[in-house]
């Protein structure tokens, strides 16, 4: 029988590798602890049986709220073995979001990673009457809790193990009952607008996306992968769950969120997927650390990094580099790139992607220069993650790549990108209207404006709803401009405005770390983010960066004015999605004063703002914000 579901893949891998190969590794108590395929299988079985004994049936749902840990995988697979669906909750979600997702998905169990997550669920238990048990993974600090709703992961597994001993055949029978059409996950996308919608992802979807990805970029079972992006994110699901089961490579879980960088360096992964933010951070890290390095290192960087850029240029133009450049590149590798890649934990990478949002061209170039072949991967939750990727030796910076095999693409009359295939989701859970809108005749409507080139490359312009028009009628994509701005190490986020306005302006959030360092080096005293962001000198610094960005923009798309935001954009304030995409409409609403000021004639004005802390406390702050005009050279 052909294997078409994740539970069946788990069983296949267990039969093939048993105790001989490591399936999962997690750093705990300072040591990488291994879980073999056999033990993976047993853990899933015991938890599945435990849930079964508690009354979990086919098509039931379980929510997982916790950090990336092996127990996240055990929960997901256990639920799928029972014919149910897993619902991922981002560990940093607010109470109302958690409540909404648990209730909308009809979850009857919730797995809480630790005390923090358990506290959240217990806080809202009255509002989630369908939840039968809150199953806690790490009981640290919960000795005194006596809520009857609570249960512990290990205890559930213990009760499951007894059943497994009694009926050794039962689990394999269960796995055989899982069909390719079963919904294995309901994935809630934060969405840049409105309440999250739950995409129903079937076993076929998961299996197909792994297979398609592997056809393009083949993985082998000796590969290592580090799972550090939030587990509920569909991209992490594809790489850390579907693909890793499909090709049986090892998934590594970091010790803590704070130790991710260090843990990546220790593992040296072969496959890596990261959103632009991570690549941007690495890029600023390189730039800042080089400035602080000894003179000899700075010298090598100065000499050899242009060699890398030149080589990357040859590669992008698909030209054969002359022998002289090849030799220089070898030197550059020995003296600079090898050490730099090793420092970042990128030396063993074979397949490396950026996804979630477009990556700035300059950052793309930097990593290409290092010899890290970052490929753009485009995808959406509704397409079960990646659907378009660059091929290893066919990278074009203006496109997101070519479709994965098995997925058909076309552009509608209105310019919207449509797709069809085995990875397209089944619909939104309990939302037939939205489903009807998104799926017409089997074509999924992405909401992205796109172009398909003759060679099959696809260019994403922007969200259909985001493309803006100035009063003179010229159109521009704010995202494109924002990405260019964000290449500056001093700029963290940027929001470009100009819809029905005479010119383009921008609200910019500075990178506190790098600007702070710059201020220290230039002996500019500052206290808080607000204070630093409104310094005259910082405005001048950013004006310089904006002017640099303007050079590479067409005349209509140049930024005329900007303000610096007096607080960082934050997902806790609903200004960013959990995957750190700017929620444009919300931000425009919230900072309406600033936008009005950008098109007004005053240079300075006072704002009042409510600041809210994570624990609900808040205060009001007042500050003076400036508007800065950027000189535009013709």
């Amino acid at each position, binding site marked *: 029988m052909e294997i078409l579901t994740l539970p069946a893949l788990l069983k296949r891998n267990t039969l093939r590798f048993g105790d001989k190969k490591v399936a999962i590794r997690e750093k705990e108590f300072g040591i990488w602890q291994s879980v073999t395929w056999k033990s993976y299988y047993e853990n899933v079985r015991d938890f599945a049986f435990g849930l079964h004994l508690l009354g979990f049936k086919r098509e039931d749902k379980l929510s997982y709220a916790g950090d990336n840990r092996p127990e996240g995988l055990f929960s997901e697979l256990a639920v799928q073995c029972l014919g149910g669906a897993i619902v991922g909750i981002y560990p940093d979600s607010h109470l109302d979001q958690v409540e909404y997702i648990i209730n909308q998905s009809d979850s009857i169990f919730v797995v809480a990673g630790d005390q923090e997550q358990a506290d959240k669920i217990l806080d809202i238990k009255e509002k989630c009457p369908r939840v039968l048990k809150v199953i806690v993974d790490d009981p640290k600090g919960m000795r005194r809790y006596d809520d009857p709703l609570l249960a512990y992961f290990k205890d559930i597994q213990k009760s499951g193990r007894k059943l497994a001993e009694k009926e050794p055949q039962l689990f394999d029978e269960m796995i055989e009952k899982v069909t390719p059409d079963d919904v294995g996950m309901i994935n809630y996308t934060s969405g840049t607008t409105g309440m999250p919608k739950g995409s129903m992802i079937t076993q076929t979807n998961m299996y197909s996306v792994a297979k398609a990805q592997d056809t393009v970029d083949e993985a082998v079972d000796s590969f290592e992968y580090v799972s550090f992006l939030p587990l509920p994110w569909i991209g992490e699901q594809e790489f850390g769950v579907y693909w890793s089961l499909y090709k049986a490579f090892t998934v590594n879980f970091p010790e*803590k969120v704070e130790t991710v960088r260090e843990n990546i360096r220790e593992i040296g992964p072969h496959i890596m997927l990261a959103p632009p933010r991570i690549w941007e951070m690495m890029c600023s890290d390189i730039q800042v650390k080089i400035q602080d390095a000894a003179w000899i290192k700075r010298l090598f960087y100065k000499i050899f990094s242009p060699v890398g850029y030149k080589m990357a240029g040859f590669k992008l133009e698909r030209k054969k580099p002359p022998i002289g450049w090849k030799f220089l590149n070898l030197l550059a590798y020995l003296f600079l790139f090898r050490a730099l890649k090793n420092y970042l934990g990128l030396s063993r990478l074979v397949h490396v992607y950026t996804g979630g949002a477009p990556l700035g061209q300059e950052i793309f170039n930097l990593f290409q220069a290092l010899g890290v072949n970052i490929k753009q991967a485009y995808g959406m939750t509704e397409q079960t993650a990646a659907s378009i990727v660059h091929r290893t030796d066919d990278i074009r910076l203006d496109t997101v790549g070519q479709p994965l095999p098995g997925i058909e693409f076309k552009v509608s009359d209105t310019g919207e990108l449509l797709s069809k295939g085995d990875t397209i989701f089944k619909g939104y859970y309990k939302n037939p209207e939205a489903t009807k809108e998104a799926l017409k005749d089997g074509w999924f409507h992405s909401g992205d404006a796109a172009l398909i080139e003759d060679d099959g490359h696809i260019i994403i312009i922007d969200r259909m709803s985001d493309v803006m028009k100035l009063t003179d009628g010229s159109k521009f994509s704010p995202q494109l401009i924002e990405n260019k701005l964000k290449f500056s190490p001093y700029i963290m986020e940027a929001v470009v405005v100009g819809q029905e306005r005479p010119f383009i302006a921008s609200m910019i959030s500075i990178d506190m770390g790098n600007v702070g360092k710059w201020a220290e080096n230039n002996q500019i005293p500052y206290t808080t983010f607000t204070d630093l962001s409104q310094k005259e000198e910082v405005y001048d610094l950013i004006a310089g960066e904006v002017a640099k960005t303007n050079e590479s923009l067409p005349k209509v798309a140049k930024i005329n004015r900007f303000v610096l935001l007096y607080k960082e954009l934050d997902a806790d304030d609903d200004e960013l999605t959990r995957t750190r995409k700017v929620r444009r409409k919300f931000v425009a609403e919230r900072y309406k004063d600033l936008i009005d000021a950008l098109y007004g004639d005053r240079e300075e004005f006072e704002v009042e703002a409510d600041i809210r802390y994570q624990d609900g406390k808040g205060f009001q702050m007042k500050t003076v914000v400036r508007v800065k005009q950027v000189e535009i050279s013709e």
Partner: protein
Amino acid sequence: MQMEDNKQYQLRLEDIHLSFGGIQALNGVTTGVRKGEIFSIIGPNGAGKTCLLNCINRFYHPEKGSVILEGRDISRIKPHKIAALGIARTFQNVELFGHMSVLDNIKLGAHVHLKSGSLSGGIYYGKSRREEIDLRSHIEAKIVDLLEIEHIRKSVVHSLPYGLQKRVELARALAMRPRILLLDEPATGMNLEETEDMARFILDINEEWGVTIVLIEHDMGVVMDISDRICVLDFGQKIAEGKPAEIRHNEQVIKAYLGEEDITYSRLGA
């Protein structure tokens, strides 16, 4: 009565007198700490709180009075032997080895329990090697995990922010596997979040390890929240002792704190 007290208290202080020159720092303080409780000592600046802790772990030698640990008078025991008896402490100002790593600092705390000598330890072979590995896994599983300092375990201490240094100091005290832990202002100079973390750690240590805790702290929110009993000192004398609710409404305490009722009330968190 006297007999009963001896049994009831794990640590007892009897009529402690301590003076520096003409200044009477402690003037006949008698109190006791029960096993497994969180016992806080509060009082205005210069009331003698730290002096009292110093008398317990024998940094100071009281002129009169005795310190009794589990029925045994420890007033004449040498300071370095106090640690071996199971009393550990942290300091008001961080007293770590700044140039050493976090792990090395913590390991030092466990020194009293190591059996191998410096020679066999230096060779790192056989029994002493096993002992070292066991110690490391104990520290990782029990202390680093509890105090959430995984990300800094290899950092050099003086490069860390103050709040984290305080946590490392607590970790070092824990490595001694104490039965009684003396904490001298563990939350001083911390922001709200760090203070809340620290309070949670103290509770965890108390609950999960069963360690008796003697706490000096100025943050009344923390003291009132986590203490089982509170002892109030003023000018070297005990003026009150009891449960947080009793202390909060004790008139003498309110007077001792600034003398003004309304201000004190807010400071006591009432």
